[in-house]
């Protein structure tokens, strides 16, 4: 549904997006991750047809965006980053306006508005002036606007920003639900959301895609993926740390905490030995007569991967 090839955007001499490519099919939810200023919003603005690209290709439903902007735009629902709204309107009036612009026939307007109000839990503020809404409700009103025409493609720039925990949960569930028959792109700084709602995620840094995969694939790329966490006691004189380091399956041992008779250590697997590490550690402990209190294989964590690969950027 969405295909982006080698997209570039320059603002004067500043390069905001530098060769981004990705594809989103129907039934997929693509998460955009990346540090502040990475170029997530700029990419979305180009895909929605708001900003013209400097170079590159954007295909919406197989048709190039520039060739038929109005048709492409009619298929997309878009929640901009700042959730902009007309402050002089009421929630209902604004949604009606959006529905009309979206080309919903007059007879279907009321239904469409009611449905969006229900989906985004806006019943309480339906007749309230947008000017007096709280931040979360403003955000939800703008979200409602983006789904009012039941679009095939949804582009949501930080959809859960400013929502309370319950609403965050609802919106994630909503994205996941809608993702079954739509193509969705959403950006977020909350990494759990990626696991909760995405079928795939890309990490963008300084305008380029630096990681791309399913949440599980990405987690497996984290340095500590597959590490074995060991907590054991009864080590008097066993020199367990050195023994662990000697294991061919282990790359290194990071001691988290240790006492006279107690150790908590993370054993990072050597390349390709992820599956054999924990039995080896277990055997070693048994041979040495240690009392194992905890032994588990850690999953890689997205935030670790994120920090590892985008680190240099936050420093400049």
């Amino acid at each position, binding site marked *: 549904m969405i295909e982006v090839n080698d997209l570039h955007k320059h603002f004067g001499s500043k390069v905001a997006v530098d060769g981004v490519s990705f594809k989103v099919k129907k039934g997929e939810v693509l998460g955009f991750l990346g540090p502040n200023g990475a170029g997530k919003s700029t990419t979305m603005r180009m895909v929605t047809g708001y900003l013209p690209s400097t170079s590159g290709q954007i295909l919406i439903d197989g048709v190039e965006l520039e060739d038929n902007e109005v048709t492409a*735009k009619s298929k997309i629902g878009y929640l901009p980053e700042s959730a902009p709204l007309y402050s002089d309107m009421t929630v209902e009036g604004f949604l009606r306006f959006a529905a009309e612009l979206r080309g919903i026939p007059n007879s279907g307007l009321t239904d469409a508005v009611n449905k969006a109000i229900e989906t985004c839990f806006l019943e309480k503020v339906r007749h309230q002036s947008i000017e007096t809404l709280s931040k979360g409700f403003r955000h939800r009103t703008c979200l409602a606007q983006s789904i009012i025409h039941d679009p095939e493609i949804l582009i949501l720039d930080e959809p859960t920003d400013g929502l309370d925990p319950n609403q965050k949960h609802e919106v994630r569930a909503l994205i996941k639900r809608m993702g079954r028959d739509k193509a969705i792109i959403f950006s977020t700084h909350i990494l759990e959301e990626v696991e909760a709602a995405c079928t795939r995620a890309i990490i963008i840094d300084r305008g380029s895609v630096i990681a791309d995969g399913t949440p599980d694939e990405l987690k497996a790329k984290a340095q500590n993926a597959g590490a074995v966490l060991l907590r054991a006691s009864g080590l008097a004189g066993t020199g367990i740390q050195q023994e662990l380091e000697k294991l061919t399956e282990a790359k290194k041992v990071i001691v988290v905490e240790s006492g006279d008779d107690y150790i908590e250590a993370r054993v990072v697997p050597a390349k390709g030995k992820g599956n054999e590490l924990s039995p080896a550690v277990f055997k070693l402990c048994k041979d040495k007569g240690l009392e194992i209190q905890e032994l588990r294989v850690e999953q890689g964590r997205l935030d670790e991967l994120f920090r590892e690969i985008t680190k240099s950027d936050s420093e400049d």
Partner: protein
Amino acid sequence: MDALLTLILEFAIPTVIVAAIFATIMIFLLPREVRTIFKRELKAYFTSPIAYVLFVVFLGISSTLSFFFMGVLESEEASLLQPYFQYLPWYLVLIAPAVGMRLWSEEQRLGTMELVLTMPLAPWHAILGKYLAAAVVLFGMLVLSFPIVWTINYLGDPDNGVIMAGFVATYFVALCFLAVTSVVSAMTKSQLVALLVSVAICMMLWLSGLPHISNFLDSINEGWWLLIYPFLKLANSLGAMPHFNELAKGVLSLRDIMFFVTFIFFCLFATSVVIRLKRA
């Protein structure tokens, strides 16, 4: 009472006809997108205090003006409202930008431009819809100055045809100023900047057509002035005043009307160019 009835016939009927033509064009000729934008924009004028404030200011100014010229009227019935219409555009230089300043700058300040321009509509739908809404507000102002006409009719016996022509000419000038404001407001997110710059440009547009300036230009025949003469002449010929004067005299020539219409379309087109460049 009779006079009032005649007046209503003479003014209300043309007004209603104009409104009906406008509504017909709106409903049958323009796409729904334009209507939707127009409706929202017009409503926005009346849900905020801006339209009411402007109405009051305009009425204040125009009735002071007419009161001032009333003295002249009593002695010399023939010229009547002529001076009134001569001065009205000077106020429109201020009023029209005040009506139009929010058109695109507010959209940029709120960020809603990003919404509107990602909706399935062509930019000209939005530009025209917004412009027409502001044009209706200006029309409302002129209609509200009807009591002045009534007073004048009560006091004397003016030629209402000429007064009507004065209104038509005034409205055309106001629409030109509004079109200039549309372009300027697309350039900035600050309404104040939009207002000030538009007022300056409208003032120049109005002044550059002054007879003094044309006469002065015609008298140039030597010196370095000749170098910039073509530019001055161009600015002078762009000036709205001569066209206004012709119309206000009740001479409805196609040439003058074409001047206004072309100018307005040019400005609306320029608005779309500015909006496109702003995003690049």
